[in-house]
């Protein structure tokens, strides 16, 4: 008897969507997420283009849908270790890493108050710190604390365990293995921001005021490291000018060969963040082509008109720092003006693109990948489907559509498996 349940790997917007959509048809779903919370990359985004609305709004609805639906099961801090079997009958081994905090946690924050150790806050891309025991962010679902075992001093400290009134802290918690039997698998492990350190000509990592677009989201977010104030990381100063460098790694044979699809719109969106906080700031976008497809063209037009940005046709070639002021000099060839220009900025934002997670970690099954590591669509292993940005670089709405489509593909696999 084949199995009608579906495993969804990755609890970001694509995975959540695939899971919720399949469950609302009536299928049992398991979500395996490697972070201690669901929501993935979109939880770190301040606003979506083109509506400039907060991602947490849609996530809240999705979490409500999960909460109300007994057919959805999820594991956080979990990774798929192996897959065997075939369409309609896959055996999957899932490793669940220790949270060191059990289900008793009420989210009261007493533990973090007493924790003596700090760690770099990955949620804010290292722009600030949290305690070693922490709530990943205030919207975290599930709302349970977690311990970073790289930072935690363990039982020798134990202050958090002493402070917890609910016996929720288990410093000796071990990883455990879970076995699942499912009919189909949706792989939706998403993307990583392309490593800006590899673009040494832009000085990321050497110059504090060169940041990436994902960091910009955190700087602009009210629950970010600066409470939403966009400032220079080097000294916390307000900014008078900002440059956005498009195709930082994308459309590049040496880095990501594909276009990442979203960065043009993301930079236009981030220009609105800056404009809202700094009515007089100079905003320049260095680009090759502005890719605002379909109705996004309206957003492009609107931002151009309302945000008063300067578009410079020419990929930025280099960024230099004036060490005395922390200012950055962006050098580019303004192709319309037919000359090389050097302009000074307080902040440079690299529009780094999407590297699929499968560029680094492959699916433990027979699958094909393209030159950037994106999963090639089509059934290499029937019954395993990629969804969202692990397959194509997509904006959120497209990823959601793709995940919805993939939910049907997975359902079809379980139906075929019945025959």
């Amino acid at each position, binding site marked *: 008897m084949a199995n009608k349940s579906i495993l969804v790997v990755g609890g970001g917007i694509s995975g959540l969507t695939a899971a919720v959509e399949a469950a609302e048809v009536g299928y049992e779903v398991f979500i395996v997420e490697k972070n201690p919370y669901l929501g993935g990359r979109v939880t770190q985004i301040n606003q979506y283009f083109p509506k400039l609305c907060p991602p947490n709004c849609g996530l809240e609805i999705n979490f409500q849908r999960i909460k109300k639906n007994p057919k959805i099961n999820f594991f956080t801090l979990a990774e798929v270790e192996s897959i065997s079997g075939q369409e309609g009958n896959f055996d999957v081994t899932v490793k669940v890493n220790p949270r060191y905090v059990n289900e008793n946690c009420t989210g009261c924050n007493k533990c973090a108050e007493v924790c003596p150790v700090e760690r770099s806050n990955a949620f804010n891309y290292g722009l600030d710190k949290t305690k070693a025991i922490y709530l990943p962010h205030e919207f975290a679902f599930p709302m349970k604390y977690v311990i970073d075992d790289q930072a935690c001093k363990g039982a020798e400290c134990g202050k958090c365990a002493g402070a917890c009134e609910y016996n929720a802290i288990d410093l000796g918690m071990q990883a455990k293995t879970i076995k699942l039997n499912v009919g189909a698998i949706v792989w939706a492990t998403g993307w990583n921001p392309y490593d800006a350190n590899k673009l040494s000509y832009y000085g990321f990592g050497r110059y504090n005021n060169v940041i990436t677009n994902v960091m910009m989201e955190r700087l602009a977010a009210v629950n970010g490291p600066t409470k939403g104030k966009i400032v220079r990381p080097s000294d916390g100063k307000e900014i008078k000018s900002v440059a956005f460098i498009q195709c930082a790694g994308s*459309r590049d044979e040496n880095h990501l060969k594909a276009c990442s699809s979203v960065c043009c719109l993301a930079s236009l969106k981030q220009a609105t963040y800056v404009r809202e906080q700094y009515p007089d700031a100079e905003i320049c976008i260095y680009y090759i082509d502005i890719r605002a497809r379909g109705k996004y063209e309206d957003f492009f037009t609107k931002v151009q008109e309302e945000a008063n940005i300067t578009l410079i046709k020419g990929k930025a070639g280099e960024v230099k720092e004036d060490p005395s002021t922390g200012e950055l000099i962006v050098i580019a060839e303004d192709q319309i003006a037919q000359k090389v220009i050097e302009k000074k900025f307080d902040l440079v934002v690299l529009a780094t693109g999407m590297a699929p997670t499968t560029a680094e970690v492959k699916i433990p099954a027979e699958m094909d990948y393209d030159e950037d590591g994106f999963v090639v669509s089509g059934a290499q292993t029937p019954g395993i489907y990629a969804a969202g940005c692990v397959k194509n670089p997509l904006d959120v709405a497209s990823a959601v559509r793709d995940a919805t489509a993939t939910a049907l593909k997975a359902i079809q696999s379980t139906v075929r498996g019945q025959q």
Partner: protein
Amino acid sequence: MEQKNNQPVKYDLNFAREIYSLENGSYIKQCMQCGMCAISCATREIMDYSPRRLFNLIKLGKKDEVLEANTMWQCTSCCTCKARCPRGIPIIDVMHDLKKYAIQNGYSDDPRAAFYKAFWAEVASRGKVFEGGVTARYYLIRGLDELKKAFAMKDVGLNMLRHKRMPLLPPKKVKGLGNLKKIIRKAQELERKEAGR
């Protein structure tokens, strides 16, 4: 680019096709006009056209502008543009092709053309390079005026001489020079055959 009498520049693909057929020429077609090369170049401030603009001129069919440009001669083969080009165009190799093409087609006014010829003559005759030899050949090609200019630099040369940096005698020729010459001749023959392919 200068526009004569405000007349529209007329595209002519014939010259472009000729350039595209050079050893590395077909890569030029991949240029997406991003301009990364323009910034990467160590000598960009003194180049007539950035590689991007040069590729555009090729596309337009502006033969004289392209071949009279100093762009390829300013190229020092530092590889920055080649390492960075998002479209994977081996720009320095394209520049080699353009230098060769310019020399072959009689566009060799640039002093570097003389230097290149001198260098090659030196290699071809001994299998190794001897700076003294290259320099002598260079001034032979460029003539006396150039030598006068060089005189201003004599302290550099003297300093080198003083620190045993400029041997006056050439190194030994390659023993297998005959074979090397045969190899080179054969290579050139094959290359011509390939180009005509």
